[in-house]
C-alpha cells in the first residue's frame, strides 16, 4: 500500500528527511512518532503530494506519488482520509457541510449525505452540533470534525496527524477504538502522534522518526516506552545542511 525508498526532503537546503525507507501493506495499522520537529508531518505530506520529495521514490497504492502529473492528484487524495494536524476546516461552512463535502463530489445524493454525516459525527460525539460553524467549536470539537471528515468516506487509507492532541483521555480512547474498527474493516491506517500512552496500549508497529531518520520498533502492550529512542530526541539539530 505504501512504499518509501530512500526518500529525502530538503527545505531551502535544510534536510528534514534523510534516506527514509519503509513499507506498509494493505490493512496495516502503523504508528509514526518522534519528537517535535522530527519530520512526521512532512513525511505524511509526501504521501498525499502536498510536498514533493527531493529525492527517492514513493509509491501509494501502486501510484508513483512523487512523479505523478498534477492532474491526477485529486484522484489520489480521494482514496484517502486525511486528518490534518491543524484540522483545515472550512471556516465558512457548517460542521455538516465540512464533513459531507467529500461525498458531494463522489456523487452521493443529499439524503444519503445527511444520513452518513450524522452517523459519522455520532461516532465522535458531535451529532448535536451539525449546523455550528468551526469558530463556534472548542479545540477538541474541531479536531473531531476533522476526524469525521476523514472517516465519512470509509477510505482505503487513513492518514492521521496527531488526531488526539486536543482530546481528553476518554475521547482519545474512543477515537482509537474507532480507528481499530475501521482498520478491521480493511482500511490501512498511518497515525502520527506524540502520545506514548496511545502507542503503548495498542501493541502496533511503530515507526520512530528522529532528526529525519526513521527507527523502527514494535511495542508490545504494557511494555515500557522505548525510552532509549525517545530520550535522544531533541529539537532539530541546528544548521545542518
Amino acid at each position, binding site marked *: 500500500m505504501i512504499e518509501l525508498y530512500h526518500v529525502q526532503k530538503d527545505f531551502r537546503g535544510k534536510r528534514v528527511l534523510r534516506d527514509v525507507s519503509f513499507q506498509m501493506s494493505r490493512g496495516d495499522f502503523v504508528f509514526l512518532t518522534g519528537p517535535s520537529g522530527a519530520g512526521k508531518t512532512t513525511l505524511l505530506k509526501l504521501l498525499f503530494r502536498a510536498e514533493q520529495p527531493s529525492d527517492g521514490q514513493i509509491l501509494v497504492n501502486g501510484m508513483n506519488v512523487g512523479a505523478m502529473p498534477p492532474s491526477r492528484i485529486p484522484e489520489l487524495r480521494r482514496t484517502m482520509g486525511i486528518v490534518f494536524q491543524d484540522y*483545515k476546516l472550512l471556516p465558512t461552512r457548517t460542521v455538516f457541510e465540512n464533513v459531507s*463535502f467529500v461525498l458531494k463530489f463522489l*456523487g452521493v445524493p443529499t439524503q444519503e449525505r445527511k444520513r452518513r454525516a450524522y452517523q459519522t459525527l455520532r461516532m465522535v460525539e458531535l451529532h448535536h452540533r451539525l449546523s455550528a460553524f468551526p469558530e463556534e467549536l472548542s479545540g477538541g470539537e474541531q479536531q473531531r470534525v476533522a476526524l469525521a471528515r476523514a472517516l465519512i468516506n470509509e477510505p482505503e487509507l487513513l492518514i492521521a496527524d496527531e488526531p488526539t492532541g486536543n482530546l481528553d483521555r476518554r475521547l482519545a480512547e474512543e477515537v482509537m477504538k474507532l480507528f481499530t474498527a475501521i482498520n478491521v474493516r480493511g482500511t490501512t491506517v498511518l497515525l502520527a502522534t506524540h502520545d506514548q500512552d496511545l502507542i503503548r496500549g495498542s501493541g502496533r508497529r511503530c515507526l520512530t522518526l528522529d532528526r529525519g531518520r526513521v527507527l523502527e520498533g514494535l511495542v508490545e502492550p504494557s511494555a515500557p516506552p522505548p525510552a532509549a529512542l525517545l530520550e535522544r530526541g531533541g529539537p532539530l539539530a541546528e544548521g545542518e545542511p
Partner: protein
Amino acid sequence: MSGRRTSALTALLDEAAQGLWRARRMTVVSVLQIAVSVFLVGVFFLTAENLRGIVETVKDETAVTVFLKAAASEEEKAEIERLAMESRLVARSRRVSTQEAGARFAATWQSLARASSSLASSPFPETIELDLLPDATRSEALPGFLSLLAARKGADDVQFDVDWIRRLRGAVALIAVWGGAVGFFLALGAVFTIANVVRLTILLHRDEIDILRLVGAPEYLIRGPFLIGGLAQGFLGGTLAVGVLYLAFRGVLRYVSATHNVLIGAFIVRFLPPSACALLVVGGLLAGVIGGSIAVRKKHLQA
C-alpha cells in the same frame, strides 16, 4: 453515467450558488463594481455615439451660401450652379427660394411665423446652397473659387465663414482623438478594476481553495463555482449598468429638453443600439469569467 453526470452538475451549481450566497455582501459589492466599470465604458460609448452624430451634422454644415440678386435671371442662376458643380470642390448644389427660406425661418420660430410673413419686404433673398466636398476647406483653390462665384453677375454675395469652420474642424478632430484616448483609458481602467476586485476576492478564499484541494476536490468543483460566480456577477453587473445607463440617458434628455426648450430632434440624440448594449453586457460577463479563471489558475501543484 448520466445519473452521475447530472449529480456532478448539480453539485457544481449548488456549490456556485452557495458560494455566492455565503459571501452575499461581497457578491453585491462585486456586482456593483462590475456595474460601475461597465457603466463608465457605456457612458463613453453613448457620448461617442452622439458626438459622432453632432460631428456629422457639423460636417454637413460646411456649406457655401450664394446670395442672389433679386433681379438675377434664371440663366445667371444656372450658370452659377454649373460653375459650382464644375469646380471639383462642391458636392451638391441646392436652390433655396425666398418662400422656402421664409418657411425655414418660420419653422424654427413657429410662434413668430405670422410676424415674419406679415413683413412688407421679405428679408430672405433667394440663395443657392452649395455643400462642399469633404476636403474642400483645405483646398488651395477655394478662395479663388469663392471670389469667382462672387464676381458672377447674378450673385449678390458669397457667404462662407472659413475661420469658424476651421476652428470647428479642429475642435472636432481634437475631440475625436481625445475621445479615442479617453475610451481606451476607460476600457483599460474597467478591465484593470474588475480583474483586481476578482483577484482580491479570490485571495480572500485562498485558504478555502487550498483546503478543497487537500481533501481531493476535483478541479471543476474548485474552479467551477468561481467561474460560474464570475459569470453570474458579470452578467448582473453588465445588465445593471446598461439599465442604469438608459435611465440616466432618459433623465438627462428630459432635463435638457425641459430647461433648454430645444427640439432635441434636430440632433441625432439616441441611445446605444441593441448590439452595443449586448456588447457591454458581454463585456461585463467576460470580465467576470476571465477574472475568475485567471485568479484560480495557479497554485495547482502546491497544497
